[in-house]
């Protein structure tokens, strides 16, 4: 059978052209709609993916932060454990659970008391230095007077010159080392350590750093302002010295310093 001719008749051509135009128009629209819908759907998917990824990222960041915190905590506890292991002293660890109620005093409350073997006037230390001493032990907690408290008095000596003095607390400003002879060679930056004469602290434990030295004309002693080595606001864990076992940190500190100087001198020579 012969196929019919597909050519449009002359009278139908304008109509056919109109039909073509209409078809092309709608095809264009539908392509646009399809494209837009596709993009919109893609956008929705991207949005959902973005939300999910953001959530995952936030979770990962939190976990990373927790890991970092754990790492820091681990380091800190390792230091505490090492400190406890490497000393002859009988130490009891404790946590700080409270601060003083009024700003005129500087004391902390720890979570150990007479039940744990604590007594009045026992030294309280951290890994970095001396903090204070127990002044009011209760059954399960104790109040510790920080060396920065106005009522605190600690026997101390200047590590460099070995001259004795008394550190009196001055509140948040730190403390003042009193009754040091005015002829002593003391400079800002010198380390003040515990003297050991008060039978509270072991000898030679870091107490503070000299910030200012005042020589008054009509006074036989210097007024030495010191800043504590341990910042009172940042104390979290402490050790209470149950038995100092005649531990002397002064000679330990001196020998460490001299070995450091030796190593430095050797490096310079090389």
């Amino acid at each position, binding site marked *: 059978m012969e196929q019919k001719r597909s050519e449009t008749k002359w009278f139908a051509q304008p109509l056919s052209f109109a039909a073509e135009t209409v078809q092309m128009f709608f095809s264009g629209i539908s392509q646009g709609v399809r494209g837009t819908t596709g993009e919109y759907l893609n956008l929705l998917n991207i949005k959902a993916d973005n939300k999910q990824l953001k959530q995952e990222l936030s979770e990962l960041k939190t976990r990373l932060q927790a890991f970092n915190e754990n790492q820091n905590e681990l380091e800190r506890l390792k230091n505490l454990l090492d400190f406890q292991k490497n000393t002859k002293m009988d130490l009891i660890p404790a946590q700080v659970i409270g601060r003083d*109620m009024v700003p005129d005093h500087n004391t902390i409350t720890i979570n150990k008391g007479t039940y744990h073997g604590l007594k009045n006037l026992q030294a309280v230390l951290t890994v970095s230095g001396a903090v204070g001493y127990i002044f009011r032990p209760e059954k399960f907690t104790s109040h510790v007077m920080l060396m920065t408290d106005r009522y605190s008095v600690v026997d101390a000596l200047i590590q460099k010159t070995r001259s004795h003095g008394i550190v*009196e607390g001055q*509140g*948040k400003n730190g403390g003042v080392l009193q009754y040091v002879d005015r002829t002593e060679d003391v400079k800002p930056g010198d380390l003040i350590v515990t003297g050991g004469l008060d039978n509270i602290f072991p000898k030679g434990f870091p107490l503070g750093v000299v910030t200012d030295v005042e020589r008054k004309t009509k006074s036989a002693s210097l007024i030495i302002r010191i800043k504590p080595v341990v910042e009172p*606001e940042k104390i979290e864990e402490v050790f209470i010295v149950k038995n100092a076992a005649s531990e002397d940190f002064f000679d330990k500190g001196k020998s460490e310093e001299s070995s450091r100087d030796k190593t430095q001198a050797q490096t310079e020579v090389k």
Partner: protein
Amino acid sequence: MSKKNLKLFLKYLSFTAIFYLICGFQTSFWPEIIPFLPAPALWIIFIVFISLRWPTTPTLFYIYFLGFIMTLFSSIPLKMSWLGLICLYGISWIFKKRFNSSSLFTFAVTCSVSYLFYVVCFYLISMWLEPRPTSALFLDRTLEMGLIFLVSAPFYVFLNKVDTYFKDTEIWSAQNIQSNSFDQGEF
């Protein structure tokens, strides 16, 4: 024990418990959460409230008792605590006798001014009695005063609820010779 006396006893017990909570919050909670700001002296607001609302004689003795409780949370000596609180009570008493106001704003101002007066008195007493007196601590005290002003209004609402719950008008009116708006619970 009669019902009235039991109510009175429970009132003192409740307020003592609230005072303990305040002191614990100030010493153990706030320094851990917001260490860079000094804790608001809620105990000042507490003392001012009971000084304004309660009758004179039992309040004085109760304040002595609260002063003793304060020493359990601080190394402040008892004599300094009592002397400071007496000064605080004194300024609150002056406010009570001189001002008639029922607004929370006035209470907030009263608390802040009372705190300022307490700080000045404490400083002078410390210079007089202590071998190593306290320092001015200007920044800390200014911040505390601001925090007291902000916190006093909501704290007043809470204390007022507790006080009203235990209120027995017969007892209080018998103990109060002069009635004024503060004693009747209107501030």
